């Protein structure tokens, strides 16, 4: 990768620039298996064309994956699509979609730690791809809601059946959503915010 010279770097357009009054940002992470619609959801509510940031990580060659000796290291680039919503003149919300292997997302320092919460997007055709990430969110204490992305050819299961299959705690909200629709994606985010709000009320 060559260093991009100044002439080729395109920044945000005039319309995409945040106001100078923007003082603070918050973030929500959208997780789920490959092809489940995370980037679609980011794009459907974002005010900017979704962008991609990346991080490079090295994996020490130890453990069960490694047959070739303990010193080998492999570099892995983890990319993350994200979008933005200006909530007010001061407050900005960023939405991060997480493609690729879930075990890497949690090593991206500060991605989940600082996030308000997460949306787990699931596809009922491949429910099992979400199992690992749900477990990791539970372990880290990141509050999340589960959104069932409605694909036309997906098998139909009742929300109760899905809740049991996912072994979700009773309090975790589940919603249906169409990640292509702005209103539906927005409502999913609102479900997460109401849930977070209810958690603060419960603790008082």
């Amino acid at each position, binding site marked *: 990768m060559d260093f991009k010279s*100044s002439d080729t770097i395109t920044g945000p357009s005039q319309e995409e*620039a945040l106001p100078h009054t923007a*003082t603070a*940002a918050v973030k929500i992470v959208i997780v789920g298996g490959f092809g489940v619609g995370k980037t679609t959801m980011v794009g459907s509510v974002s005010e900017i064309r979704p962008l991609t940031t990346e991080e490079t990580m090295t994996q020490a060659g130890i453990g069960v994956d490694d047959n070739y000796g303990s010193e080998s290291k492999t570099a892995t680039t983890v990319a993350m699509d994200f979008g933005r919503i200006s909530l007010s003149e001061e407050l900005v919300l960023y939405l991060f979609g997480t493609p690729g292997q879930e075990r*890497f997302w949690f090593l991206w320092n*500060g991605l989940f730690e600082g996030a308000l919460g997460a949306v787990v997007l699931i596809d009922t055709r491949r429910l099992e791809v979400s199992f690992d990430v749900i477990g990791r969110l539970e372990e880290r204490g990141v509050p999340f809601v589960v959104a069932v992305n409605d694909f036309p050819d997906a098998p139909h299961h009742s929300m109760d059946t899905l809740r*049991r299959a996912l072994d979700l705690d009773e309090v975790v909200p589940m919603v249906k959503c169409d990640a292509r629709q702005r209103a539906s994606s927005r409502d999913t985010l609102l479900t997460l*915010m109401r849930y977070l709000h209810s958690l*603060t*009320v419960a603790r008082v």
Partner: protein
Amino acid sequence: MSPPEGENPSHRDDPPQRERRTPENPERLYILTGEDTERAPLDLVTLIVAHGEAPPTAEPEHADVLRLCGAPLSVAEISAYLALPFSVVTILLTKMLGADLVQARAPIVRSTLPDRSLLEAVMHGLQKL
């Protein structure tokens, strides 16, 4: 592969069942940092604002950041526009913060007891979408 549409959903196979995770060995993954540089506590969504125009002596990367950050811009966006990994951008920005070329506006992160007024502000903003 996929079952026929719209018929007897109750007769279809049950969905797969999740087993609770058993904690495993911590994974040995590291962020590539290059040299061991001290870094400012920058989040993906820390907003960066330029203090002014790039001085003629500015390094090209610094000049790029200053041009991008005429209006507030998150570290994630800077990383995307410069096509550089997040950790590389944080090293760059740490230097620029040290030289007082840019200002950082820290994000609001989830604390153990989330701020209800913040959550309400987010909900209010989303409802306008």
